[in-house]
């Protein structure tokens, strides 16, 4: 490996406490600002995509819009419905927010730099199991969702909570599986080392001229990357997978009862930070981390000093932009489609891809017994195909049966509309022109109608 | 190598299978009779070849059965076993003949009854012929099953109760014996269960006492020694007459035989140590059995209690440790088999006619059925040991023999004889003499078949009464041999006291 591959595990755990604190505060601030900026970016971008102006009143380009929103939230009345389970209700936002922050602690921003004379990597910390930490934090976030729904004690909230947790866990599996290939390639779970592994891909020497080999796992492990890209949308409840707040069917989902104020702000915060987190993971695991992309990387100093943080942030913005782009372009999927996609497409594809990649890797081993491996692979492929065919035919049959049944029902309905007990108004019904019933006017309750101040 | 004994065991078993297979009931009965007679003939032929002063065990056979436990299928007979095998071989055909219509009573399978009978015979011969302690145990236990079914399926009103009681008592005793057998084996550590290998293998007296108890209790239950007797009256009273004969006549002898064969020879010291106890029990048994018998109102129960009293004599004879008593006891086993057998059978005929077991229902049978009454009297007199009838000889020998060694017990035991006279004669008087009761006015006398049943019994009783010598010749050496050990021990202890 070339010398400037950046820090490895050995470089961590030597920081003095004050340095850790500095780094932590830095990350904290970065994320807070990121959220403010992110909200603005999103609204601005999406409105542009929809030929609108978007926020443009508060500050230049409406840059202060989100600040204003934040203040407003702080100053709004804090409503705690009386039916809720107080403790859980108050706990939920915290549980959602905190782990969102924590995932960022293993995010590598750059190589070794010296801060106040201490040589230290641009990364809060790194673990042998760094990626597991991220997944763990994601799972803890799910608790927040469930508890929020559960504590609210309202049907919408509970349903929303269950739904979104079901969704998140389902996509978490696909996500976790999509990492496996990366670990196969990198041979480690430590983020910094994974970044290091993506340093130089080496070159193909074809006819004398050397073509740089793609070093990003996004390219060499394309399937994993694509799957991850999808799952990160599902994981963060973003469009097209934002079922939990599917305003259409269940109002605000799990945070229906967190109507206003800072508690709601926590959910917003958590959501956005999660977006940053998954983007960061995408960058670190697939997009070469803080390393400069190809054209820039030709310049020697690109991957040294503080520069890499720039590259990292740029990449972050780009990925975030991708989120917004998707939101602008894709409609929301139906819940059953969502689950079916997660369980029936992503997971099997993932496993198949893992097996395939592992087989290839084994084939590349020096002492590998190729014949054996190939036969093994062949057997699996054939078996898989056989099962899949059988499966397909069965599904086909089932689909046809269902279609036939529906068709037959329609036939029946055309025969006599009353079938199935649905009240069908007679065609000659006199149309109702809204005459106000008499006892509407007398609502003499002295209450301040909400929102009028 | 000869196969006398295995043939004697094998023939009835095969016969049983055949009988069970035959569809026609009459054929089955005839087949059974034929088989049992064949066995009898074979036994007699074998018996005449037996040389009284030859080896201890003759006609020995020995096949390895379960080597890893050192179990052999070892057969062989000495005098004692021989006469007992003879006894059973003689009794079975008689019983077959006697219970010709026995099984029709309940709507149960007749063939099964006779098949069980044959199986039982095989087991009885086997148990006497076994020279391998383990094999003995196996027969000892297996013998219960056919008898259990005979009582339970073909017996009287209380049959299942009686059957279960009988089975559980014997089973329990058997299991205790099993423990003793195992312990014996592992102490002897000869890797074999053959009797001859085990004799004298246990030296430590303490151990001997425990093992002795293990065996003795089993046998005491089997040969109903007071206070282990309570199952006998029920079983004997509920069993069909034929089964009752075999039960009291042969099965119980296994107990006394076992005491004589195993308790005395394997554990001489323990036997010597326990002699007083056993004698007390026997004497109590004699008196108790007799007195209770007097009080009975049920004929079969009465006979059963008389047997308890007689078994008292036998055990006393066994444990009196003198050749006379020993031989007497052995002879007594045979005689008791015949006389009690006769009593049961004839009582059975009577009950079969009248349909009641209660003495009070009878009276003056003598007039309507003289032969029946006469034979009943003979059998009864033999039971109370009238001189000239078989039991007299044996009972006399037992008393003489025990008088030599333990005078006191002998004297007390003599009272049993007197009591015996009371219960037999009184029963006879109540049933046969006096005015003829309405209920028995029109009962028939013995018919041909029944005569054929009774005749041989009476004949044997009288014959043995006058001429027991051949049997004694066979018995004496064997008994002498088997009590010699204990005598030896006894002399030692006497000598020690003498110093």
């Amino acid at each position, binding site marked *: 490996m070339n010398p400037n591959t950046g820090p490895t595990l050995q470089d961590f755990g030597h920081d003095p406490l004050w340095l850790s604190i500095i780094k932590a505060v830095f990350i904290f601030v970065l994320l807070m600002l990121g959220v403010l900026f992110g909200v603005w970016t999103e609204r601005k971008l999406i409105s542009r995509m929809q030929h609108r102006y978007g926020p443009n009143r508060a500050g230049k380009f409406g840059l202060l819009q989100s600040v204003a929103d934040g203040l407003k939230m702080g100053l709004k009345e804090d409503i705690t419905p009386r039916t809720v389970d107080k403790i859980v209700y108050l706990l939920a936002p915290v549980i959602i927010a905190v782990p969102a922050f924590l995932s960022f602690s293993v995010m590598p921003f750059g190589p070794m730099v010296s801060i106040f004379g201490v040589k230290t990597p641009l990364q809060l910390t790194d673990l042998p199991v760094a990626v597991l930490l991220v997944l763990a934090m994601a799972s803890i976030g799910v608790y927040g969702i469930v508890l929020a729904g559960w504590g609210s004690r309202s049907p919408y909230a509970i349903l929303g909570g269950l739904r979104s947790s079901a969704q998140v866990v389902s996509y978490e599996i696909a996500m976790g599986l999509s990492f496996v290939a990366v670990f196969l390639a990198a041979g480690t779970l430590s983020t910094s080392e994974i970044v290091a592994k993506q340093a130089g891909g080496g070159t193909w020497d074809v006819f004398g001229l050397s073509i740089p080999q793609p070093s990003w796992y996004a390219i060499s492990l394309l399937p994993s990357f694509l799957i991850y890209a999808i799952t990160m949308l599902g994981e963060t409840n973003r469009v097209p997978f934002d079922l939990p707040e599917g305003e259409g069917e269940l109002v605000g989902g799990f945070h229906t009862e967190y109507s206003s104020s800072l508690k709601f702000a926590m959910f917003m915060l958590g959501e956005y930070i999660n977006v940053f987190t998954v983007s960061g993971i995408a960058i670190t695991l697939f997009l070469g981390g803080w390393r400069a992309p190809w054209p820039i990387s030709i310049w020697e100093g690109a991957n040294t000093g503080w520069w890499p943080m720039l590259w990292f942030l740029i990449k972050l913005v780009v990925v975030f932009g991708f989120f917004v782009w998707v939101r602008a372009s894709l409609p929301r999927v139906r819940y059953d489609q969502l689950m079916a996609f997660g369980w029936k497409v992503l997971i099997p594809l993932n496993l198949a891809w893992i097996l395939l990649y592992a087989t290839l890797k084994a084939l590349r081993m020096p002492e590998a017994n190729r014949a054996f491996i190939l036969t093994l692979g062949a057997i699996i492929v054939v078996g898989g195909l056989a099962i899949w065919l*059988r499966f397909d035919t069965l599904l086909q049959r089932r689909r046809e049966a269902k279609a036939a049944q529906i068709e037959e029902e329609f036939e029946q309905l055309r025969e006599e509309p009353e079938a199935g007990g649905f009240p069908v108004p007679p065609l000659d019904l006199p149309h109702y022109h809204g005459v106000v019933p008499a006892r509407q006017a007398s609502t003499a309750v002295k209450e301040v109608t909400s929102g009028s101040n | 190598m000869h196969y006398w004994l295995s043939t004697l065991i094998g023939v009835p078993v095969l016969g049983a299978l055949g009988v069970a297979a035959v569809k026609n009931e009459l054929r089955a009965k005839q087949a059974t009779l034929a088989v049992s007679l064949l066995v009898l003939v074979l036994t007699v032929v074998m018996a005449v070849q037996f040389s009284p002063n030859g080896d201890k065990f003759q006609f020995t056979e020995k096949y390895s059965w379960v080597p890893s436990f050192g179990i052999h299928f070892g057969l062989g007979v000495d005098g004692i076993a021989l006469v007992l095998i003879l006894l059973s071989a003689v009794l079975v055909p008689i019983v077959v003949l006697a219970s010709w219509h026995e099984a029709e009573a309940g709507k149960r399978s007749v063939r099964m009854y006779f098949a069980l009978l044959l199986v039982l015979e095989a087991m009885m011969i086997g148990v006497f012929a076994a020279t391998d302690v383990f094999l003995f145990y196996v027969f000892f236990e*297996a013998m219960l099953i056919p008898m259990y079914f005979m009582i339970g399926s073909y017996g009287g009103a209380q049959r299942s109760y009686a*059957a279960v009681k009988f*089975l559980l008592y014997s089973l329990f005793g058997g299991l205790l014996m099993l423990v003793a057998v195992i*312990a014996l084996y592992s102490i002897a550590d000869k890797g074999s269960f053959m009797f001859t290998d085990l004799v004298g293998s246990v030296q430590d007296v303490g151990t001997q006492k425990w093992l002795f108890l293990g065996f003795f209790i089993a046998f005491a239950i089997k040969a109903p020694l007071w206070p282990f007797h309570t199952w006998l009256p029920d079983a004997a009273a509920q069993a069909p007459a034929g089964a009752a004969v075999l039960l009291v006549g042969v099965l119980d002898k296994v107990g006394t035989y076992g005491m004589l064969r195993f308790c005395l020879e394997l554990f001489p010291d323990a036997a010597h140590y326990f002699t007083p106890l056993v004698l007390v029990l026997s004497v109590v048994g004699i008196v108790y059995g007799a007195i209770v018998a007097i009080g009975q109102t049920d004929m079969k129960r009465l006979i059963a209690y008389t047997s308890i009293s007689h078994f008292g004599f036998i055990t006393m004879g066994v444990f009196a440790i003198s050749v006379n008593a020993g031989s007497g006891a052995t002879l007594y086993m045979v005689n008791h088999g015949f006389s009690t057998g006769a009593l049961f059978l004839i009582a059975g005929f009577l009950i079969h006619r009248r349909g009641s077991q209660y003495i009070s229902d009878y009276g003056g049978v003598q007039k309507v059925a003289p032969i029946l009454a006469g034979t009943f009297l003979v059998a009864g007199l033999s039971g109370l040991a009238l001189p000239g009838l078989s039991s007299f000889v044996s009972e006399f020998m037992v008393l003489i023999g025990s008088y030599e060694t333990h005078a006191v017990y002998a004297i007390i035991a003599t009272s049993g004889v007197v009591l015996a006279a009371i219960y037999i004669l009184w029963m006879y008087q109540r049933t046969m003499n006096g005015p003829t009761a309405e209920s028995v006015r029109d009962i028939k006398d013995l018919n041909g078949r029944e005569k054929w049943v009774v005749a041989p019994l009476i004949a044997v009783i009288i014959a043995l009464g006058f001429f027991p010598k051949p049997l004694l010749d066979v018995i004496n050496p064997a008994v002498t041999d088997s009590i010699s050990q204990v005598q030896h021990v006894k002399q030692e202890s006497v000598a020690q006291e003498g110093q």
Partner: protein
Amino acid sequence: MNGTIQAPTIEYGLLAPMLVVFGAAIIGVLVEAFAPRYLRSSIHKPLTLLSLAGAFVLTIWQARSGIPTKPAAMGAVAVDGPALFIWGTILVLAFVSVLLINDEGHFVASASAVPGSAEEERALSEGATHTEVYPLALFAVGGMLLFPAANDLLAMFVALEVMSLPLYLLCGLARRRRLLSQEAAVKYFLLGAFSSAFFLYGTALLYGYAGSVDLAKIGASLGAVGGQDTLLYIGAAMLGVGLLFKIGAAPFQAWKPDVYQGSPTPITALMASGTLVAAFGALLRVFWVALGGLEWSWTPIMWGVAILTMVTGAILAITQTDIKRMLAYSSIAHGGFLLIGVVAIGNQQQNASALSALLFYLVAYGFTTVGAFAIVTTVRDAGGEAWHLSRWAGLGKRRPLVATVFAFFLLAFAGIPLTSGFFGKYAVFQAAVDAGATPLVVVGVVSSAVAAFFYVRVIVLMFFSDPAADGPSVVIPGGTWAVGALATLATVVLGVFPQPVLDLAHTAAQSLFVR
């Protein structure tokens, strides 16, 4: 640090029997998934039977081709003499039980349907069946194979669960008396999970004590490690609790009658035979290999447990009116008798004889009990099996053969000579006497006399009492018939010519457990 990992090796050949069974189970699941409903059972039956038979053949072949002297699969599994013998036994018993399972009418049409509900009616009318039974049974059998062969506590724990979990489910699948069946499942599950938690904590403590879960290593460290005896003792005790629960030894026997009564009779047969055998194999391995050096500490306790088990089983059985409950208690009592053999530990050669005695006993008992349950399935009322004892009255007259065979099995349980049960008891008792456990043997004898009482009671009922007017009918499907015949044959042969099997057990036990 990655460099230090060495690729482990696995002797697939040695584990072949187990692998065959598990593989068949997995194929079974595939069949469940993809075969059309009407084909499933006709695929499952041959598949299951063939796999079991194949596994048996493989086991025999291994025993022929020499018993390995060191544990396989990196010391996780020990395929030694006893293990092979037990494998053979379990496979045969499982085969027989599967024959029982094959016969119709034991299993619920649709487990998820609420009893008495419309959907259940529909399922019944459609003739739906849960063919999942076969894969489940195969998984259970696989677990049974691994359980006694496991050479470290982790493998043993996994095996324990693999064995138990399918059984929990199978318990709840009885076609008749659904509520009872479901209750049995719940009880079995809750208690089973409870006990396995104990087993696990015991494992943890022993791991803490010895620094390894490998039985041999634990055994080796007994003397070596000092100062942590509390860990050792508590751990051993908890381990014991877990194992004793599985064999249903008092005071952990409470589940047995309920489960045996509630679950479908073929499954009961499988549990009563296979699980018992497997559990005893494991018990022996743990207590002889790992805790052998601790003998003086656990023997007295084991004495107590054995006595308690025998007495409880024998006495409580007397009061039972449900045939299956009675058999359950009798199996508890038999567990007690087997425990006598476990206690009969001593020098090398003594251990070998005790072990061979146990192995023989297990074979004998296994066959007899399967046969007994097979008979139980044949005697049927309108509402399924005629479970109440009073219904059996006079069976001897209605169906002499069935009654005779059943009586024969009962006599074998009671240990009457010329039946397999007798030599089994005898062998164990003798081993115990050699090891100086005579008092235990006396207790065993007494309690088996007591036990004989209720066996005899059933015989009395069948033969000496008159049949009821509307007595149960006797239906003997082919499979059940074969099972009955086989079990009878085994009981007779083992009772009259036990020598061959004894030799087999002896040779199997000679090498004892590998360490």
